[in-house]
């Protein structure tokens, strides 16, 4: 196992630590670094799964009549979704399963675990000078609660009716309607039966996992900081993870509760989301209800809008840490950065309604949400300006990590600016549920967050494994990803403006969408190439684990505390508790060194 090779082998003889066995050290480990690395490996694995699903979605949209029958040779279980007698064309239901699972895997098993799981775990104790997390066992549980989620999601493809195919938003009654006889069969859609039940359980596990993590982060940041590490001396990575943890701790219960409600609708026959008249599906009927489908949307978006920031803030924080290191210049506006992150988090709680302008929610409420939503653009703008000001007049070192971080800044501008359309309710009504939204979320989650993650992985890899990732391959990966991701996702804006609804199995059925079909094919080819480009990253990652250049303790000449520990840090992180004397961004200037670590006395 390459994973185990790269982990620290030296024992520090730390007082009070018994010698754990192999399982205790590398599998059910309570060491925050091992858990962080476990998260990292899992997330990269899931990234491949989620990306593969996305490619199938793209293939279908670009070439709606074509065969993907070749898949059934590798996974015979899929034959029922890709029947050979159709000439290997996928079924419309399989298509809905694909995009539902793509979103679920990417959000709950890639982005959130990679950001808060991998880097949150690895970096928080190291950056604040702590020996470990506040609750190491809770931390371990949090990781292992993610696996049932993944297992349930993947298993659901092979259960009766297939995986959930009702979109990651799982709107009732499509997702929740069940027959009154208590069977698992949903009259709304075959894939909204047992598959959807498993999906809800998976969301429940992922939610519990994240909540355990966030409680841990909050406690750790508040209680375990090294002497001198005041809140306003914390690196922005820690700040962003701290704010994210608060967001998660407050918002996630809403989703978890909503998932339990829908689960009980499906399993116990409650009617939280079923309207009084019930629902009719041909000769099927659900029986009378007493609930409201709109309730789910409120509960869901009360979590899922803050979730967007959960998926973005840590990347912002890490980029804010990476930019000054390679710009050799202090971060511009540390306090405004902290304030704007807090403002994003605060406002993030009262803007969920902009997902529901056309949902049948009272339009007066819509007006209120619209004003709140539009103001959330402001802190994001402030952050962008501060990043740009950080780069202004700097001596930029073009490392792969820095390139990805600058890619983040560049692409976040597009993702952020296209969000303004969504805040303008009359325009949002037009672009809602079209490809414009798909473009926007991918600019935020793929081109921003994922670039942040690539930057961070490249940046902290030496600290994690004691070796550096290849710079050349890293830069190649950046160049191709940057260009191809734009090719894949930018034209989606244009499709959306033209009114191309998302989640269409075969858009060529519509006369007004036919002119866009070459564009769809262009995006599909780009997406395939984009997927291939990620193999460079994967190869670089695995190759460097074993053969990468040996890294010193502080290969990037950075200031924050983790670089004062050896690479990789031993169990317990620091030999002596570090004492912090200054903020994290003291670069440049006319002193003897161009950077001043947080611990060093002036």
């Amino acid at each position, binding site marked *: 196992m390459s994973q185990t090779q790269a982990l620290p082998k030296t024992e520090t003889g730390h007082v009070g630590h018994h010698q754990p066995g192999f399982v205790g050290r590398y599998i059910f480990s309570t060491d925050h670094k091992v858990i962080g690395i476990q998260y990292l490996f899992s997330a990269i694995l899931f990234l491949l799964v989620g990306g593969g699903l996305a490619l199938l979605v793209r*293939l279908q949209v670009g070439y*709606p*009549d*074509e*065969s*993907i029958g*070749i898949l059934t040779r590798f996974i015979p279980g899929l034959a*029922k979704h890709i*029947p050979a*007698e*159709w*000439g*290997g064309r996928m*079924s*419309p*239901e*399989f298509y809905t399963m694909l995009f539902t699972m793509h979103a679920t895997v990417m959000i709950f098993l890639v982005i959130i675990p990679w950001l808060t799981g991998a880097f949150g775990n690895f970096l928080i104790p190291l950056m604040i000078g702590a020996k470990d997390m506040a609750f190491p066992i809770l931390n371990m549980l949090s990781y292992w609660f993610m696996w049932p989620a993944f297992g349930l999601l993947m298993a659901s493809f092979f259960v009766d*009716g297939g995986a959930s195919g009702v979109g990651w938003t799982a709107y009732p009654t499509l997702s929740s309607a069940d*027959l009154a*006889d208590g*069977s698992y*069969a*949903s009259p709304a*859609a*075959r894939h909204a*039966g047992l598959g959807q039940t498993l999906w809800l359980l998976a969301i429940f596990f992922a939610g519990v996992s994240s909540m355990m993590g966030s409680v841990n982060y909050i406690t750790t940041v508040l209680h375990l900081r090294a002497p001198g590490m005041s809140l306003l001396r914390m690196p922005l990575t820690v700040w962003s993870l701290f704010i994210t943890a608060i967001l998660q701790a407050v918002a996630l219960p809403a989703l978890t509760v909503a998932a339990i409600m829908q689960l009980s609708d499906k399993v116990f026959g409650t009617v939280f989301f079923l309207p009084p008249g019930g629902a009719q599906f*041909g*000769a099927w009927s659900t029986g009378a209800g007493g609930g409201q489908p709109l309730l789910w949307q409120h509960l869901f978006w009360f979590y899922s809008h803050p979730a967007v920031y959960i998926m973005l803030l840590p990347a912002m924080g890490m980029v804010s840490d990476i930019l000054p290191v390679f710009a050799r210049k202090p971060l511009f506006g540390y306090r405004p950065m902290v304030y704007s992150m807090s403002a994003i988090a605060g406002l993030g709680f009262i803007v969920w309604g902009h997902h529901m302008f056309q949902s049948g929610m009272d339009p007066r409420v819509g007006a209120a949400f619209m004003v709140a939503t539009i103001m959330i653009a402001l802190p994001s703008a402030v952050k962008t300006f501060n990043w740009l000001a950080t780069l202004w007049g700097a001596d930029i070192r073009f*490392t792969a990590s820095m390139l990805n971080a600058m890619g983040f800044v560049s692409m976040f501008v597009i993702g952020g600016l296209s969000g303004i359309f969504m805040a303008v309710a009359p325009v949002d009504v037009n672009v809602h549920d079209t490809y414009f939204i798909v473009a926007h979320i991918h600019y935020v989650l793929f081109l921003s967050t994922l670039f942040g993650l690539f930057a961070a992985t490249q940046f902290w890899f030496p600290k994690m494994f004691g070796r*550096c990732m*290849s*710079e*050349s*391959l890293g830069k190649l990966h950046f160049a191709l990803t940057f260009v191809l991701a734009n090719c894949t996702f930018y034209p989606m804006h244009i499709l959306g403006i033209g009114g191309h609804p998302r989640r269409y199995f075969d858009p*060529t*059925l519509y006369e007004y969408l036919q002119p866009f079909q070459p564009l769809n094919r262009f995006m*599909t080819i780009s997406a*395939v*190439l984009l997927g*291939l480009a990620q193999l*460079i990253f994967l*190869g670089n990652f695995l190759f460097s684990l074993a053969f990468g250049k040996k*890294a*010193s*303790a*502080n*290969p*990037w*000449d950075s200031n924050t505390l983790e670089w*004062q*520990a*050896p690479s990789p840090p031993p169990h317990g992180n620091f*030999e*002596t508790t*570090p004492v912090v004397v200054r903020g994290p961004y003291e670069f440049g200037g006319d002193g003897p*060194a*161009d950077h001043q*670590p947080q*611990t*060093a006395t002036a």
Partner: protein
Amino acid sequence: MQQIPTQPSTPRPSPIGRWLSVLVALTLWTTAGLVIPLALPGCGVTEIPDSVFYPLRSNPLVNLDKAPASAPPAFPPPGKPEVSLKWLEDQGVPILNPDSLEKAPWGTEWREEVNTFLLSQFGTPAKPRVGTEGVDGFATIAKLSETLQLTPAVLERGSKQYRRLCLHCHGLGGEGAGATSGWLNPLPRDFRQGEFKFISTAEHKLESGFQPLKARPRREDILRTLHLGLEGTSMPSFGLLAREDVEALASYTLHLSIRGEVEYWALFYALRQDPETLKAVEKDPAKESRNRAIRFLSGALEWEDPEADVEDFVSKAKGSLLPAGMAKLLDRILREYAAADKNPILPMVDPYPSDQPTPAQSLANGLKIFQAQCVNCHAGYGRQSALRFDNWGGVVRPANLTVPVYKGGRRPVDLYYRIIRGIPPCGMPKANVQEGDPARQAWDLVRFLMALPYPDSLPSDIRQQIHGGAKQ
């Protein structure tokens, strides 16, 4: 330990690493150039690959010679139509499983002969057709398929549209078991039995004096369903398609239906024999094929004088008897469809002018007929209808007539057709309106049915009876 490196040690790529990366990159993109063409299949957007064939029939046939004794307990659960077949079997209704043909020593050979015939006469999804030269009686078959608009050009167009629009519910061979069908109720129609529910064909005999094998629809009936869909089911409307496409789809539906029916009868009469008889036949191989053919044909074609006619047929037939018999069957089915088109129900003249308000007497008469003839199945005006089996072995519910949703169409004439002809595959009988003034009786019933869902249009006494006291 505090380490403060004084020199910048940003990793710089070594020359070897650089060229290695170039090499890796080039390899990757060469691979990409190869992988994409292999992974992405062709661009022929509406072309159907030649390698796709109609599937062999594998699902059970319901032998309706014996009617089920009791009603089904419920709808079978979504995606499990086999459950209702099990219910039927438990009641002693024979379920004929094509797989059991294997038990007969000649079963495989029989299947092969049937399949070869189907492939030669009906083609593949890419090249569908009805009838090819070299089969007995080809001249009439060709002429009939022309009349029924079953020419290869029309069918090819229909096949393409079918693949895009219909296949995922109705399946490649029209078996009604496509990927989407799983949870639909009512299930998508299985065309392969030659039966249609909503027809406007008058009862008639063929020129030869025989009854049609099944109640045949008119082409207009299929077109109506395609244009308007079947409200209350998952069959949507295809009225927005180009006229030619709808026509082509109607033709293709007929094609699938005819193909399926020929297969159906060929399997049905092979399977209906009990295994003992089948074995007895085996002992005399010379008689075997003849017996098989006789059994099959005498069952399907209802000869007037089976022995003499069959002798005649056998002596004239070239080669194997089975294909010859199937060709004869195909010819007969085509003739039946052609005859159906010529025998529409001609509605009797409505004694009341349609632009005047409905007389209360008419509604009262209609109510009387309804209560005498319809309430058995449409209990509580359909609100408490009991479920029943249909000819496919599925479960249907007699319509709730207090809701203005009509699968077969909402025009008065549509209701008239249902009353006069019934819905044969679901066991809905035709209404008995023969005595007295048939036209008045029929239209009274139609008028009553049309007023039934709207309390306001019923006289107060009838309203009281049907909708209770409260005015809606």
